[in-house]
């Protein structure tokens, strides 16, 4: 049964996508959520990992919704070694210990950094006695892992697991050949969010790793990542800088996880990580003087990324980075007439698979909430909007899934998830509230905008509806023409021919309907008997 994890104010809750049922998610003791920040979720390795808005990073078991701290502090003290009473080992040895958590099947799900090294003990056909094995105060810790060197060595290898958080001693005589061949991991805690005060401001999954950015000033330009298929194995070696470091106070402003590259976004440049592992990861510049302003505006659709920058919406794909708003709706993003440009950083993007459109929620000019949104139809490269959401205050966008189908959804300030692509043509709050549908065509010129035209009768082809009327207004004259002929079309008829529209250089039409439970679908229209005045 698939579900959604939702940050609802200062709480985390799960919502059944099929039924809408809600289940509370209890945070670990002492962990809180800041309602002024957005949680960053990553689902990987059958775990849900939560960053940023939480005071400490946590992960959620999807089966039970139990929560656990992601960061387990390193053992505060090193174990103590001595010769035991048995036989078997000869040479100099040292050991370390780590705290860990295993699931019910015995698989390791979390592991702390290693302790400091123990004292060195030299054995002569003796066994190795470990004492003072640290005990964790973290209630999630249910085993400790001991690491030790081979005789005379300096590399620590996995030795043995103590499957409790109680025992403080162990005696073993496993030969050097019998212990693991793999060196101990160089685990650190996540660079942000392990302790209160720092945060992992951004997080995403790419190439089976978690990638994140710390809020610490000296780390905001570094992309940190885990080892393959783990949520806990961060290390100092797993970091890539989005150069140049220190160029602004924002650092990395977004991740773009494409198939073969991870975009590292900054305010004024876009870089990418390519490669598969530490052996071949590289950071390359994609473009400069273009960046990402709003991390939540980033949406990747079939390996093409869409995002908002200061002067418009850009697309990054294999052909490069292009502005897709400049040619047609540039003033939306370059003037303050339509949207509150000071709050561009709050913009939230989404993908609607039914209309094959990138949708972007924006704050209208003079307002502070995401009440407007625009849509970019990928199929025909057309923009529609600005649309107005009036029934509630949108706060977030994303995709859900039910039985395999993608369900674009909008989160709201009133605590509801609203599903898009509904057939009911009434507002959600009450069935009797109409949705205000309005569209305005471009200015027609008959290819000669300087010549006065006679604009004849308007012929409308539309879907046959069960009822309703569509109002059509003509704007004839210059681009500043006032509304002229206004007429109503009966939407039960399919095709109608209306009134003559008037005389002027240009002609634009506005169609409008606002009737509860009724809608319209315009297949096309034409203006009959149109000619240049004096040249009929």
């Amino acid at each position, binding site marked *: 049964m698939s579900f959604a994890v939702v940050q609802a104010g200062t709480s985390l809750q799960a919502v059944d996508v099929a039924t809408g049922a809600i289940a509370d998610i209890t945070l670990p003791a002492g962990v809180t959520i800041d309602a002024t920040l957005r949680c960053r979720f990553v689902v990987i390795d*059958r775990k849900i990992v939560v960053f940023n808005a939480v005071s400490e990073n946590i992960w959620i078991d999807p089966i039970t919704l139990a929560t656990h701290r992601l960061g387990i502090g390193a053992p505060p003290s090193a174990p103590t070694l001595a010769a035991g009473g048995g036989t078997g080992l000869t040479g100099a040895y040292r050991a370390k210990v780590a705290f860990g958590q295993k699931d019910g099947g015995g698989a390791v799900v979390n592991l702390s950094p290693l302790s400091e090294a123990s004292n060195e003990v030299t054995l002569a056909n003796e066994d190795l006695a470990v004492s003072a094995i640290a005990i964790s105060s973290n209630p999630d810790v249910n085993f400790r892992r001991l690491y030790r060197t081979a005789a005379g060595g300096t590399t620590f290898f996995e030795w043995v697991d103590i499957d409790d958080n109680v025992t403080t001693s162990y005696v073993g005589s496993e030969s050097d050949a019998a212990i693991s061949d793999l060196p101990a991991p160089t685990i650190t805690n996540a660079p942000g969010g392990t302790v209160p005060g720092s945060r992992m401001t951004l997080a995403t999954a790419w190439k089976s790793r978690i990638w994140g950015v710390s809020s610490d000033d000296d780390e905001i330009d570094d992309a940190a990542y885990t080892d393959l298929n783990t949520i806990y194995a961060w290390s100092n070696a797993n970091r890539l800088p989005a150069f140049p470091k220190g160029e602004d106070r924002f650092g990395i402003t977004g991740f773009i996880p494409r198939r073969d590259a991870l975009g590292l976004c900054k305010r004024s440049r876009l870089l990418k990580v390519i490669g598969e592992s530490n052996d071949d990861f590289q950071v390359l510049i994609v473009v400069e003087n273009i960046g990402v302003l709003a991390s939540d505006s980033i949406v990747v659709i079939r390996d093409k990324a869409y995002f908002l920058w200061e002067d418009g919406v850009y697309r990054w794909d294999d052909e490069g980075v292009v502005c897709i708003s400049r040619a047609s709706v540039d003033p939306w993003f370059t003037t303050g007439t339509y949207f509150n440009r000071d709050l561009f950083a709050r913009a939230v993007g989404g993908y609607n698979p039914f209309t094959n459109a990138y949708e972007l929620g924006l704050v209208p000019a003079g307002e502070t909430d995401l009440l407007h949104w625009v849509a970019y139809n990928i199929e025909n490269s057309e923009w529609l909007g600005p649309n107005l959401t009036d029934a509630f205050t949108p706060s977030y966008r994303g995709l859900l899934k039910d*039985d395999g189908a*993608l369900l674009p959804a909008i*989160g*709201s300030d009133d605590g509801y998830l609203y599903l898009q692509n509904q057939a009911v043509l009434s507002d959600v709050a009450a069935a009797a509230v109409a949705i205000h549908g309005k569209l305005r065509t471009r200015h027609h010129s008959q290819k000669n905008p300087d010549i006065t035209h006679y604009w004849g009768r308007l012929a409308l082809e539309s879907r046959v509806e069960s009822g309703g009327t569509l109002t059509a207004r003509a704007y004839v004259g210059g681009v500043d023409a006032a509304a002229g002929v206004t007429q109503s079309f009966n939407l039960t008829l399919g095709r109608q021919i209306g009134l003559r529209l008037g005389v002027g250089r240009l002609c634009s039409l506005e169609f409008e309907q606002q009737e509860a439970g009724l809608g319209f679908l315009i297949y096309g229209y034409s203006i009959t008997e149109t000619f240049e005045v004096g040249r009929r």
Partner: protein
Amino acid sequence: MPRELPDYLVGQKGLNLVASPLHTPDGGLLVAQNVEYIRVFGAGGIGTRGGLARLNASPLAGAVLAFTYVPLATNAFGGGGGPATLLVALEPGASLGVPWIGSTDGAAFSTIAALTEPALYAYWAPDNTNEVSRPGAVSLASDAFYFVNDSRQLVKWNGATQTIPLPAFPASVENIYSLTVLSGLIYFDTHNGAPSETVYSWNPSTGVLTQIGTLTTVTGEYVPIGTNNVTLLIGLAATIPAAREVYALSGGSWLLDHTLGAAEIPASMLPFGGAFYLGTLRSGSSGAPIVLARSGAGVWSTSLTASDVDGAFGPFVEFDGKLFVCHWEPSAPVTKIYVFDGASWTLDEDLVSSFGFDGTEHPGQAVVFDGALYWAFPRPDDFPAENGSLLKRTAAGAWSQVINNRCLTGALGVVGA
């Protein structure tokens, strides 16, 4: 009350001609509020958007600041209170034992004693008559597991077996075939032995059976149903002559959405990533089968062409955020699993070389259970021999054989998830 939007700029792409601008690429709009492009069924235009429906009936604890979809199983919503069980249907022949076995760990299987209703064969297969074999099917609804039994009746299982007492179909001999679930309703098609098909929905909550549109009589025998929660699609495959058509439900009527190529027959469907994917069947050395993609805007295109001729693509299954499909051709033999990551297809496993398949293993149903993909490969031609296989694929990409030499029907299910 809705408020007025501010005035708008002067036109997208400048000035334009006058005629019929709404559904041509060059005829874009100036501005549009609360309308969207609707470009399906060949009658596209611009129409009103629907309202938004609340998913949760009661409000959450605060403003929704972020959310993520989790494609994993949870017990948080009372899914039986215990571990999920993987159900595997067996052919209950005279000496072959019980019809269902189950496992809570995907490794050790035991008899499901209370589940005595045998399942219809559930496999995808072309045969020598240029026909797609009918798949019996199982499906999951929110409250129980449903499957088609050996008598082609709809059966519900939630710890006890219940044969759904469906009202009489127009033709008394109609039988149920493939199932799909959409918004809590179970959709299925029926076939009465004559060349006609009818699609119905059944509401488990109310027991209401509803006929979905009326299909023109076509020489067809098999209707795979696919849905993306917005559009319900069916494909008609036929004996001879082939009706190579895909229909979409629009306004209560089935409309021809796409006609396949001359040698292509629809074999299976699944929505994935906002598009539909349809596998085709080819036979008689007529070429390689293909996978077609139908975009959210209703545009069809070829997504994958098999590297081997003949055979069929099917079934599809989504797992680990990827789309899997089997290409099976018995005579070559070919049994290859392809995987689509949203951008490109790759060969995931060749079961002939990996597991020694010889072409008699028909691709049956596949389900996701406990974080892994389980895929049944029955050998119906060998009944009562017990040579079917159940394969497992982990998220890491490792294939293994979980069951071998059992007489599978190809039907699988998961309960309690």
